[in-house]
């Protein structure tokens, strides 16, 4: 059996990649994808820990996170659509009407 620590390290790496993605990428959609990656790293952590502890709570929480993430996608994409319709861009650097 693969030790839990492997999963945790993998999840930490994915989470870090997500953080880097948010900080360096300029496309709103790619930034959002990076956030989703961070959330999935959390899901992996929770599932791995739940298996190690033999408790279901961690796995149940993963379902809640997935549901919330789906709601977030719906709202996030709607907001991006709104921006594209008015400004024709998804680049966050061009959204500079308000001082960033």
């Amino acid at each position: 059996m693969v030790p839990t620590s492997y999963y945790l390290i993998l999840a930490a790496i994915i989470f870090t990649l997500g953080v880097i993605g948010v900080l360096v990428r300029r496309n709103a959609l790619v930034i959002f994808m990076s956030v989703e990656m961070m959330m999935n790293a959390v899901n992996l952590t929770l599932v791995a820990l739940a298996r190690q502890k033999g408790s279901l709570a961690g796995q149940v929480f993963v379902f809640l996170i997935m549901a919330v993430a789906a709601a977030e996608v719906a709202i996030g994409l709607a907001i991006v659509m709104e921006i594209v319709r008015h400004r024709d861009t998804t680049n966050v650097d061009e959204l500079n009407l308000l001082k960033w």
Partner: protein
Amino acid sequence: MTITLPSISLLPYLPEIVLLITALLVLVIDTFAGEKRWLVWLALLGTIVAGVTTWSLSLGPTLYLQDMLAADPYALFIDMVVLIITAISLLLAYDWLNSHAHQQGEYVALLLFSAVGMMTMGAATNVITIFVALEILSLSLYVLTGFARERLTSGEAALKYFLLGAFASAFFLYGVALLYGATGHFDLVGIGKNMAGTGLMAAAGVALLLVGFSFKVALAPFHMWTPDVYQGAPTSVTAFMSVGAKAAGFAAFLRFFHVALAGSYATWGPALAALAVLTMTWGNLAALNQESVKRMLAYSSIAHAGYALVGLAAGNALGMSGLLFYLLAYAFMNLGAFGVIIMLEKKGSGDLSMSALRGTAREHPLLAATMAVFMFSLAGVPPLAGFFGKFYVFGAAVKANMTWLAIVGIINSAISAYYYLRVSVLMYMVEPDENTTDVATNNRPVLAFALLVALVFVIGIGLWPGIWMQMAQQAAALLG
């Protein structure tokens, strides 16, 4: 095979359920109602019914729904604060909504959904419920921020708020996951019992949770979104989220630190104190030379988050009740200040510049006097609500042997007086010129009534702080 269902009692959740049903009713009626302005009144009625329900619930420390939520005086206090905020916010939005009639139903419903999230955050005794409530409140606010579709800044603010909010949520979640790994629990009591002897993993978890919370209540250095979002959002939404999200965020923040981390105050106390100093100082210095009144109030709200955090960092009973008192006092004075901005801003501009305030006292003497009261209260001038808020949290810091923190707070209040008084000076002591706002303010009774309510409470809390402090003390006693 028999399936046994767990016994579920939803009775203590009744205030939230009432609000939820009202929101759904608003959405349904919106689809076929000809006259939409009644929706606001329906929502207001729902808020009042929810308030009565809150009031009539017993004050026992009951846990319900598998111990996921609590119906203790603490939760009821937060319920009350949120309901008051919601009611005043609905009134503040009334005029703006009449010029956005086709969106009225969605606006009102989202506001109520967000309020449900805020109330649930106050009641949550489990990080899972805290997370879900946080998302209910945030997702509604993201949409509300982008509601003024005719202005480009509104959508831009919504996107910035959404991306940074989701980013913060991910940090929050990772913190929860690590805490689960270290303690094996999601509920605050369970985490608290198993905290002893946990190492790096738990510490990292708490740190990540702190980052998530700090984003939501706008603590420096995680406050970067605040000025942009507050400026871009419709002013009635800014008013609502500046006080509502802050109250709910601090409610969960306080419960988490005092229940789950009660044993390790020696570690997090100084860390939060440092964060408080950074937040107040940064917020106040940045507020000094803002040209937009909304942006100035955004930085001021960051500074106020810092003051409130002093109460949490003090870690004693006075600090807790002081923080709750602060949230209540801050709600009225900030809603009032934004209400005056709504009154004075040009239709469709969604913002008010400092120069537009020049000499407005000439044309609108009552409004200028009202604004002056809110500004004095925000600056912490006795005998107004804001003074006693600061008095209690700084007093708690002194009591916790953190006198230096109280002194930093008082110095910061002195700095903040500059930009609050600047508003009054511009209104009273400068001649009106071509920049001065020239809107008519005499035909908006609903907005005027909302301002009056806020004004009465700001003065009332200031004159009789004891009553409110006693309620805050009862609310905080159980966490203790």
